[in-house]
């Protein structure tokens, strides 16, 4: 007979099976040989501490229900915090993707939004633009930030093209076109206005263009200085414009030139300097009153001159161009003479030539019947110019003539005896004796 009852009164049989134990019996675990539980032994509502599991799975904490995503369909999830991935587009905090060409990842907030790439303090943070899975095509374009030195770099075609350094300076590796233009081969091509807005007085040039580099001071520079009365601007080569209106050379060994546009005084000054000196001279000054002052000569090109066309004209005017001035000496030629003494001076103003001459001899051997003609005029007369004798000796006029006319033409200086009611006649050599001298002057045109 099997025991069917275990109670405080005693055990009725020594063969106890599970069926013999009351369902609510409290059996001490020490009375059990082992506890070999399987999932079927665990109540569906059992709360098993994570620490009791053989291995601890990744779990989420701190969220609404501690599950970040929910699979909503094949290859699709729904995040509990507005995270959506439909298999090709990842949306964060939004259900509306971005524009079609940039909708693979959309992040949205109603305020300032950003993405942070945090990297080592000697490393770079990068965003690469790739069209390949190997080679340089993997980083054909890139935005790179280097924490080693702190610089932001833009890459194109696999190479760095632009950099902003930690000090705020920026550089393009190659050329730059501004204003919707290509560089056109220039290092900088600006299609528009250029404004240099660093105001104030400075000893450094506002604009500086490097020269050939063959000598120091060959740069071209633009600078200004000013006060309440106004500014002056300067441009120059081997010339720096400093404060208070002073100019200085960069290299005293070389020449320099600078132009001052002096708005304070309403004038423009050209300043130049010779070699091996620090001295700078104001060689040309154009004043506000219209005056022009220069310290050197005006050198006109051949056939050019000063044009007076804006002045009033006299009747018969044929030219208003003063195109020549010259002064010098000339030597009258008087044929064959002994102890000859000839000299002359001339002044030419425009087409007008004034000559002064002196001839003398102790004796001559020219053919007595030949006309007296002196040569050697400094310029060939264009017509006839009238001269006068200032003084003369030993000229024997014909008895029927009382005066001597003297004129210059293309054959030289000619002499005519003039008489009363008789024709003029040429003076011939036989009428000039020994110890003759003549001093004469006059004008003619060329």
């Amino acid at each position, binding site marked *: 007979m099997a025991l069917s009852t275990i109670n405080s009164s005693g055990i009725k049989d020594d063969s106890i099976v599970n069926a013999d134990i009351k369902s609510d019996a409290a059996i001490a675990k020490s009375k059990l040989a082992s506890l070999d539980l399987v999932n079927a032994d665990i109540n569906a509502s059992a709360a098993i501490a994570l620490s009791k599991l053989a291995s601890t799975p990744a779990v989420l904490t701190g969220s609404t229900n501690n599950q970040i995503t929910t699979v909503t369909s094949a290859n699709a999830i729904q995040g509990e915090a507005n995270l959506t991935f439909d298999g090709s587009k990842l949306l964060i905090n939004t259900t509306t993707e971005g524009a079609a060409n940039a909708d693979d990842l959309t992040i949205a907030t109603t305020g300032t939004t950003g993405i942070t790439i945090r990297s080592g303090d000697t490393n770079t943070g990068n965003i690469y633009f790739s069209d390949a899975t190997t080679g340089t095509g993997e980083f054909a374009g890139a935005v790179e930030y280097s924490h080693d030195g702190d610089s932001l770099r833009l890459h194109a075609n696999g190479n760095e093209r632009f950099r902003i350094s930690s000090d705020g300076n920026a550089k393009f590796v190659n050329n730059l076109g501004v204003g919707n233009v290509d560089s056109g081969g220039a290092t900088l091509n600006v299609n528009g206005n250029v404004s240099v807005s660093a105001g104030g007085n400075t000893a450094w040039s506002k604009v500086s263009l490097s020269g050939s580099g063959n000598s120091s001071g060959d740069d071209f520079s633009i600078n200004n200085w000013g006060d309440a009365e106004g500014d002056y601007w300067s441009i120059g080569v081997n010339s720096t414009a400093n404060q208070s209106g002073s100019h200085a050379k960069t290299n005293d060994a070389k020449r320099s030139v600078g132009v001052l546009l002096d708005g304070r005084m309403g004038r423009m000054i050209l300043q130049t300097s010779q070699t091996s000196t620090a001295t700078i001279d104001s060689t040309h000054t154009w004043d506000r009153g219209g005056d022009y002052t220069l310290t050197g000569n005006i050198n006109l090109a051949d056939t050019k001159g000063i044009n007076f066309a804006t002045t009033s004209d006299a009747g018969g005017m044929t030219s208003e161009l003063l195109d020549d001035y010259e002064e010098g000496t*000339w*030597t009258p030629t008087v044929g064959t003479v002994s102890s000859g003494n000839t000299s002359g001076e001339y002044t030419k103003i425009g087409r007008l030539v004034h000559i002064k001459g002196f001839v003398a001899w102790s004796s001559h051997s020219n053919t007595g019947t030949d006309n007296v003609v002196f040569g050697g005029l400094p310029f060939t007369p264009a017509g006839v110019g009238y001269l006068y004798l200032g003084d003369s000796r030993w000229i024997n006029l014909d008895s029927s003539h009382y005066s001597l006319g003297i004129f210059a033409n293309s*054959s030289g200086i000619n002499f005519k005896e003039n008489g009363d009611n008789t024709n003029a006649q040429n003076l011939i050599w036989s009428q000039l004796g020994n110890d003759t001298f003549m001093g004469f002057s006059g004008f003619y045109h060329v």
Partner: protein
Amino acid sequence: MAITKTQENDKIEVVNKWNIQVRCASIIKEDGKELTRSFSRKVLVPGTLKGGDGADKDTLVETDLSSEDADVKAIAESAWGVGTVKADYTAFLVANKSTTP
């Protein structure tokens, strides 16, 4: 300090076919820098009429260029050697023998 003086014919002009206008510049320099420049002028013509009472009185006696500077001589010979320049000049002299101004 070195003072130098040089002379050069800085203008040689042919006027009216036969007139050779020559300007000689005297240049004074100090250490190569020009200080002054003064001028002396003359006009060379192809020659003079022989004159006298002979039959050849209207023959041209050509100007002796042997004492002229080489550059003046070259230009004069070139200008006067063209076509009928000398004959034209001779005719001019003959025609102007009795010129009245």
